[in-house]
């Protein structure tokens, strides 16, 4: 079955080719029922349309100018740094407030009220008064702090405690040796934008604003933390001759760390259009690459091999802390050999290379090849980049005039997988999601044991679909959905989501995240991949660590103007 064509794509495609060629791409895409299962989503890896990659292309192609203009870090690691960002006519500043080294490592969780570093990204000229005021607010009030409408984001990070502990030990260290397989200097602890703390909403930025794109603000904060990490370490090395500083070659492999937990599962369920846009866009580019009949050129094969090299490196890094990643290392090496053979053999299109790999490597390794193929398809990537905001901005609405009898048939055809799940067993309803009193941190409880079932977060899609199906079955055939929802308003959200699935494919995870056997890490991996993070490793089945922006050049003008101290 061909992938459903999302609303808006046909018009967008019209500039690139015929509707027949679009149909070929849609037919080549995996079916939604195959793609949206938890096991398939788990395997998905960062691609050319991941939010981080998309941002990095903009930074590099549009020549964003980022330079550190103030640096004052004391021996206890406290102080401030200010980065100036010029993008065409836009002037932004990223201010880093560094706190002294704490007694131990910080987790970087939402429950925490203290971080090593706090950052503010704002639009406008350098303004020390404002920087001072905002520093007081973010440092003293943290979660309760408020900002102004010209602030784009607040963001938090922690230093790699092991790295900094060693750096401060007085021992001789070569940072290049230490970070040769990648890794990070700073760990991201979240970006709070899009209205949070009173910041400006990205959707309301002017049309030509460089950060007006889904998740771009979040990913830019991540990018800035990478640069701030290098600035911190370079400064530290300059003051400590016993430490060999990072070379540019090593820096390329060093990214920014991140750890995500079960809250991301609730996010994926809560925002069906984000799920649809991200799953569809990546699959679209893959299919776009696979339908091409032209053979892959040498440059393209080199690029695929480069991406696979990074994938091997990422898997090796993950295997250091997560043994389960070891088989992937072996499979990825096998995949590289297949691609190296293709480079030295006869020319072939992407589909032939893919077919050769498909029969030889594991599905997880094959997904890395799919991702690599997206990086050699510029046109497909450009179209998909335009699809993403279209789909994410799509309004959820009901279709009140639709008849109950029609809705029953649609539900049975499209959501049969959910209606077939037996939700009456203890195992199928084992868990529930909730927010804790500790800053609203997402948590998962066991339904039979834990407090908070009455305040559970919505993640039970199969249950809601089944309840809706039940209400539909009990309503008269000639009722409209408008009539049904007036009588049973509790089904409003699910009716709107079902209606959304008529316009967009891939809006729903085909599985039950409440089940006793569900592993949150499977979907956390997906979320981190769509952001563009690699080096994924599971700390537990509830936490996945990753590294962002590893393997890319450092585009930073390193000129630092050491200004007078402004913080008193």
């Amino acid at each position, binding site marked *: 079955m061909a992938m459903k064509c999302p609303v808006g794509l046909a018009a967008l495609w019209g500039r690139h080719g015929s509707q027949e060629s679009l149909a070929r791409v849609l037919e080549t895409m995996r079916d939604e029922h195959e793609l949206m299962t938890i096991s398939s989503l788990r395997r998905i890896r960062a691609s050319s349309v991941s939010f981080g990659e998309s941002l990095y292309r903009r930074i590099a192609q549009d020549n964003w100018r980022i330079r550190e203009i103030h640096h004052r870090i004391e021996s206890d690691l406290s102080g401030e740094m200010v980065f100036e960002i010029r993008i065409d006519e836009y002037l932004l500043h990223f201010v880093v407030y560094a706190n002294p080294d704490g007694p131990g490592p910080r987790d970087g969780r939402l429950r925490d009220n203290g971080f090593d570093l706090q950052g503010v990204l704002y639009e406008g000229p350098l303004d020390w008064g404002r920087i001072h005021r905002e520093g007081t607010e973010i440092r003293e009030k943290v979660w309760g702090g408020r900002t102004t409408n010209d602030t784009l984001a607040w963001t938090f990070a922690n230093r790699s405690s092991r790295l900094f502990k060693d750096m401060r030990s007085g021992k001789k260290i070569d940072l290049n040796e230490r970070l040769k397989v990648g890794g990070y200097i700073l760990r991201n602890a979240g970006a709070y934008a899009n209205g949070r703390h*009173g910041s400006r909403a990205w959707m309301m930025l002017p049309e030509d604003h460089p950060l007006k794109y889904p998740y771009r603000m979040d990913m830019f904060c991540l990018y800035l933390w990478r640069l701030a990490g290098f600035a911190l370490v370079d400064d530290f090395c300059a003051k400590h001759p016993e430490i060999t500083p990072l070379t540019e070659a090593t820096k390329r492999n060093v990214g920014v760390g991140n750890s995500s937990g079960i809250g991301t599962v609730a996010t994926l369920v809560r925002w069906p259009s984000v799920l649809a846009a991200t799953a569809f866009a990546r699959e679209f580019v893959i299919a776009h690459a696979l339908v091409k009949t032209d053979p892959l050129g040498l440059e393209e094969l080199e690029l695929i091999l480069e991406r696979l090299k990074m994938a091997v490196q990422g898997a090796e890094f993950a295997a250091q802390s997560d043994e389960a990643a070891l088989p992937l290392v072996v499979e990825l090496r096998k995949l590289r050999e297949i691609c190296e053979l293709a480079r030295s053999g006869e020319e072939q299109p992407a589909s032939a290379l893919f077919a050769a790999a498909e029969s030889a490597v594991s599905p997880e390794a094959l997904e890395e090849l799919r991702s690599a193929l997206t990086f050699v398809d510029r046109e497909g990537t450009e179209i998909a980049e335009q699809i993403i905001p279209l789909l994410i901005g799509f309004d959820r609405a009901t279709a009140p005039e639709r008849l109950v009898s029609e809705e029953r048939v649609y539900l049975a055809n499209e959501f049969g997988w959910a209606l077939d799940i037996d939700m009456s067993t203890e195992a199928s309803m084992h868990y529930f999601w909730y927010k804790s009193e500790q800053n609203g941190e997402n948590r998962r409880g066991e339904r039979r044991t834990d407090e908070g079932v009455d305040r559970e977060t919505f993640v039970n899609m199969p249950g809601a679909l089944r309840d809706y199906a039940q209400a539909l079955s009990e309503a008269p055939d000639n009722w409209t959905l408008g009539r049904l929802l007036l009588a049973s308003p509790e089904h409003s959200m699910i009716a709107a989501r079902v209606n959304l699935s008529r316009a967009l494919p891939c809006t729903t995870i085909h599985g039950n995240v409440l089940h006793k056997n569900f592993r949150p890490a499977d979907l956390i991996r997906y979320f981190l991949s769509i952001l563009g993070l690699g080096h994924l490793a599971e700390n537990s089945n509830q936490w996945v660590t990753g590294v962002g922006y590893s393997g890319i050049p450092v585009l930073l003008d390193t000129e630092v103007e050491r200004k007078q101290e402004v913080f008193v």
Partner: protein
Amino acid sequence: MSESNRLGYPELRRMAPEALRMIGLPLGLADRIADVLTWTEAATGRSLRAAARLDGQEQHVVLPDIHPATEDPHHPVIDCAGASMLIFAPLIVDYLAAESHRGVYSATLRNYSDPSFLLYAAYQNSRAGYRLEISPAGHSSAQAQKFWESEELGEAPAYGQPELWVSITPPGHLARDAVSRFPGQILPEESPLWGAVREATVRVDEAKRTGIVVEDAELDWLRDITKRIRVKSSARSEMQAG
């Protein structure tokens, strides 16, 4: 009010479902009504006050009773039994939108409260191609204008509100066909409702750009009620975190 009372539009939208759940709305309804609450707060500055008023009331999700008008079987009368339009405006208007495809072009709404939330329903359905008119029954255009412009809109008790005549045409129909059935013959161009909707959308657009400034008492209420959804922490719960 200080600058710290300024909420981002999406910030309020994120808080709204939790607030609505804690005043008793079912989970499957709260998400939809969150749109109504956020839009109307940006447009009129009165929706948090209305939501706070519902907080603590036990019977605010009373289903409206629908029955045909005695003189016209194609003209339903919807008795809201005091229900707030915060909760029912989009549901009632959706119902009428659906019925308009079957030739039911008008209805009477009575015993409702918080009519300011009808502005959102009118706006939203117009985006889907429906044409909606709502006006106090038997009132002149000037009185209708006063009704929609009233600072007290939403404050009067349900049983003190005038009956509303609702007229709706489905997409593709000539609006005039429907409004000709409308008492007072108010044409859309002159409609007090649409004047109010137009002003509201300007304020909403501005709020999306610059945020929504909320009264101290309402902000305190919002912060308090959204904390109520949070569950007590324990060593065990910390292990199940993320």
